[in-house]
């Protein structure tokens, strides 16, 4: 495995920047630049880089879709949120519509924010492409077909012309796929969700989203520490604060940055990436959570430092 690329990082539903938000970012940038003269594009780029990500960029708004670049010819994705649409566009731009590709897609679960992108995944409509959809849910295929049936969508699932295959993965059992060893783990979420551990060539990536940690059972905690053990990267649902996750949003099926840090520290993980951002959070709010999480790691560190990042649409992490 070479790198991870994020195409969608939001939970629940897609969100978009508004004109007012863009205007506010521009005002902040221009106000800070007052009096400065930029002699070149390079000088402008350097200035933008110093503005801070909430001003110079955006965490984005597509729902969950994460690509793992294995180094091999076949594509590997986690989930089919709305972020799979720009992924598909990029794949077609790269290869052309006439060059068949294979896509391995691992599904955490079948709630709508994780499946909504399939009807807009253009490669699925092109004959010759091969789409293998993996998951541990018994109703995986039914859920994907249903969302493209009348009256929910005008284009029926049967119009997808790629060779589409559904593969059931037994939880806890290692499976060989696309040059990787893939293991799933049951997580707490309404209707169940599954985390994925991908191992290849000495590198390990864990995708653990839509997973609530009740904190009442030490055996449950130990199970996740084992699942995360020595991973190079853990992509972790940190949708709510700890206080919210165990009070007013208990049983909503999500977790927090605090639990992410603790589990990763106990498991000896190298990097924690906060994921599945609350749609109501703007860029400043996510940036504050990232700063808080880095500070938490710093003040609770007992061994090697844990790198902490917050996923944004378009982000790439080298492994």
């Amino acid at each position, binding site marked *: 495995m070479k790198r991870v690329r994020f195409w969608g990082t939001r939970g629940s539903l897609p969100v978009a920047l508004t004109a007012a938000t863009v205007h506010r970012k521009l005002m902040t940038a221009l106000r800070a630049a007052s009096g400065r003269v930029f002699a070149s594009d390079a000088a402008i780029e350097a200035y933008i880089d110093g503005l801070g990500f909430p001003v110079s960029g955006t965490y984005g708004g597509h729902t969950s879709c994460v690509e793992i670049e294995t180094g091999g010819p076949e594509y590997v994705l986690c989930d089919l949120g709305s972020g799979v649409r720009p992924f598909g566009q990029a794949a077609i731009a790269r290869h052309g519509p006439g060059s068949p590709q294979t896509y391995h897609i691992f599904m955490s679960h079948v709630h709508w924010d994780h499946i909504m992108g399939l009807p807009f995944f253009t490669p699925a409509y092109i004959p010759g492409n091969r789409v293998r959809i993996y998951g541990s849910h018994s109703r995986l295929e039914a859920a994907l077909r249903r969302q493209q049936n009348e009256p929910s969508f005008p284009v029926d699932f049967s119009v997808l012309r790629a060779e589409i295959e559904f593969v059931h993965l037994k939880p806890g059992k290692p499976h060989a796929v696309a040059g990787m060893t893939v293991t799933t783990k049951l997580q707490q979420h309404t209707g169940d969700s599954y985390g994925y551990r991908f191992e290849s060539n000495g590198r390990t990536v864990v995708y653990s989203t839509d997973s609530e940690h009740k904190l009442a059972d030490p055996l449950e905690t130990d199970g996740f520490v084992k699942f995360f053990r020595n991973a190079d990267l853990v992509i972790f649902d940190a949708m709510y604060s700890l206080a919210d996750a165990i009070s007013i949003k208990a049983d909503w099926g999500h977790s927090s*940055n605090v639990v992410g840090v603790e589990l990763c520290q106990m498991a000896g993980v190298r990097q924690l990436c906060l994921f599945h951002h609350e749609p109501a959070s703007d860029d400043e709010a996510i940036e504050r959570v990232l700063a808080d999480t880095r500070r*938490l790691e710093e003040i609770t560190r007992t061994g090697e430092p844990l790198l902490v990042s917050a996923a944004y649409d378009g982000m790439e992490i080298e492994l």
Partner: protein
Amino acid sequence: MEISSRQYVDVVVAAPVGRIDHYSAGQLEAALIPLLEHSGINKGVVLDFAGVEYISSVGLRVLMVAAKQMRTREAKIAVASLQPVVAEIFAISRFDRVLDVYPSVRNALEKLSAPALEAFNAA
């Protein structure tokens, strides 16, 4: 983890010492259970955290559950004298917005019970 406690009229002040982590949070929970059920403690429990170096999510959950239980009796859990690291953990976890946190035990007793404060000052 050591936990001492003392009753002042209708409030108990309990003082855990050490780390409240995934392994020791159960001890805090066990120590709180009889206090939460004690009929003579009808204003609440003040947790003196002056000796607590660290608290994990499991420990914070114990506090949340205890606070919820006290609310059913119209009583309170208050936390006082947080060490700087623990105060940051409370802020980062947003627990400072859901639990009553005070700079000192005296401040907490002042809010909870005048008789308890008087007894504390006299002790």
